């Protein structure tokens, strides 16, 4: 067995979790309220259909990456297909990065200009984008171990505060509606990982998917179980606020600031791999181009961020879901016809 095989598992884990805090949890807690955790359980089952489609795409000429498959399947219109995918990838990068910088500014650095916060996070992103895919995988694997350890510590320390009573009453807010944001934000972007060795990805696709989904399920149960849905409703980042409850056990002061780093890792890896996807799609040699683009868009959008929460909860998920799934299905159907 290869030494760094688990890096694919790590990448899948980070991709599943990246948009949970601040985006998909915001959406499902707005739509499904205390049934949010049921939405996640249901989305594990329904999302596996999409995972199976990705598996089939990965399985088709598995020695080729997704971009090479597109070149092979669509020799004339390959650039259009890639552009359509890149449009989605760029969009996800922007909302993930915006979410990250907004958390940092609202909770930690409220006096620091957004441009400085953005540059602070973009520098390590840019540095890793300059490296090859193998180095990115190794970094992901290393961060995966750190993330898992922190996650387990979080869960153990918070268990004392959970009140399962807060999870009831169930099935009063239609948990089915909450499935769409989870699938749209957490599951569909997994196709980006098909730029890596498809054999490795398909080997760990279901395992990574389950680990990632179970980790966000447990986290959702803890957030609602500790804070209660009415508190979740009024807080901007309940995922962060819930970590403050660790303090109650007098373990340490402001320990939440350390534990929130797991989420920063998720987004970091997600953005790096996604930028790599765009660079490889267009064969962009200048690694600074996309980070600079993100920086500019981020600064423009953050001037009016308040309108975004409704879009994130209700409109984006369904649009993104239809857009991505139809594109991947199109690629899959084409692969069935062209052997």
């Amino acid at each position, binding site marked *: 067995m290869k030494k760094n095989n688990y890096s694919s598992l790590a990448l899948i884990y980070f991709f599943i979790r990246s948009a949970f805090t601040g985006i998909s949890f915001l959406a499902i807690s707005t739509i499904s309220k205390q049934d949010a955790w049921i939405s996640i359980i249901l989305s594990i089952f329904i999302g596996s259909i999409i995972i199976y489609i990705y598996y089939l795409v990965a399985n088709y000429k598995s020695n080729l990456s997704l971009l090479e498959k597109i070149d092979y399947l669509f020799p004339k219109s390959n650039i259009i297909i890639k552009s359509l995918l890149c449009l989605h990838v760029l969009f996800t990068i922007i909302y993930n990065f915006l979410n990250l910088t907004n958390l940092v500014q*609202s909770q*930690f650095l409220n006096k620091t200009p957004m441009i400085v916060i953005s540059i*602070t996070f973009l*520098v390590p992103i840019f540095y890793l984008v300059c490296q090859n895919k193998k180095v990115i995988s190794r970094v992901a694997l290393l961060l995966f171990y750190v993330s898992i350890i922190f996650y387990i510590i979080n869960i153990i320390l918070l268990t004392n505060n959970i009140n399962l009573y807060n999870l009831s009453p169930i099935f009063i807010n239609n948990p089915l509606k909450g499935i769409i944001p989870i699938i749209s934000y957490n599951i569909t972007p997994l196709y980006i990982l098909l730029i890596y060795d498809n054999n490795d990805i398909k080997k760990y696709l279901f395992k990574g998917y389950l680990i990632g989904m179970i980790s966000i399920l447990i986290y959702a149960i803890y957030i609602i179980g500790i804070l209660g849905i009415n508190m979740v409703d*009024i807080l901007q980042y309940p995922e962060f606020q819930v970590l403050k409850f660790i303090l109650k056990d007098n373990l340490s002061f402001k320990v939440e600031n350390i534990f929130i780093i797991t989420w920063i890792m998720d987004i970091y890896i997600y953005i790096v791999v996604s930028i790599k996807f765009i660079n490889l799609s267009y064969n962009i040699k200048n690694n600074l181009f996309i980070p600079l683009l993100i920086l500019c868009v981020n600064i423009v959008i953050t001037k009016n961020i308040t309108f975004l929460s409704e879009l994130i909860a209700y409109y984006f998920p369904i649009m993104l879901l239809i857009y991505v799934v139809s594109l991947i299905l199109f690629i899959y159907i084409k692969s069935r016809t062209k052997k």
Partner: protein
Amino acid sequence: MKKVILLLIILTLSGCWNYQELNNYAIVTGMSIDYKNDNFEVGLLIANDNKNNTNKASLLTGSGETIYEAIKNISLAVPKELYISHLSLIVISEDLAKHGIKSSIDFLMRDPASHQNFYIVIAKDVNAYDTLSLITPLSDYSSKYIESNIDATSKLQGKIADASFNNLVKTIVEPGIEPIINSIILISNDTKEESTKQNKYVKLSNIGIFKEDKLLGWLNNDESIGANILLNNIEDLYIKIKYNNKNIILTTKELKLNKKVYKDKIVIDIKVNGIINETTSININNSKDIDNIKNLGSKEIIECINKAIKKSKYYNSDIFGFGNNIYHKYPNYYKNIDWNKKYKELKIEVNAEYNITNKGSLKKTI
């Protein structure tokens, strides 16, 4: 390119942006909020970092139409940046509590520097400012003194509510439950000589009963015990009973509460394990005596609870969260009723079983 990256990393990841020395912060340990003439009068108890100064803390005040405005007015008199992460206590005046506390807690929830890990108490019959201005005997800061007092007694006597800030906000936003907050009173020791005794000190007092965010009234000692039993907020409770005209103190060691929730009725079964802690010259030799004492213990607990329920119904404030219990069990039913009207008609049945596990170290009374 590598040099550029290195330079950027040095500039941005060194952690020097907005760097602040501890000396530049004025650490706020307590806050008082009074409400006068539609204005908030805020007092901030700031820890003194000057070792040569005998005063461990300074209390500064400012006023404004909002809490933030009042704090900003205080900052005009402070040569440092106000830092509220170490806030351990907020004292609000009775007037503010009656006016409504939502506007006061909004700032404390919204401000990222607020760690939300503090207590909130009402200054009863006194300005909130006055309670923080006291020199306290057992602690450097009056805020720390009151906070420690709540910590030490909250689960011990059943007379103090669990009124942490998070718990308070939760009871305000949750359906079918109303908040309760502890109060403090100022005690004067005017008869004692000034040179040897502390003139004034603060003491935890009755629990305030709220409707939404407005103070309606107070629970007395028995009602507070009853309320805390129903809220399962008791670890160590003592009750005094009269047996053959003599006093017996029973201490509760274990209290189990079981609620059966129906649409129009709540049945509460309480099982208590306790011990005899003190008697006043009364012999307890046979099992009949023990049975009688058990019955009196059960009766006392039921009485405290019924008194608390009666008071909460009088104010029509469901501080026990019965409505919340019904909401969790019958959500559709709860949505279709007006709980404010329904609560007064709610039937509540209380059963208690007091079990005496031992009589302490004595076999016979001295």
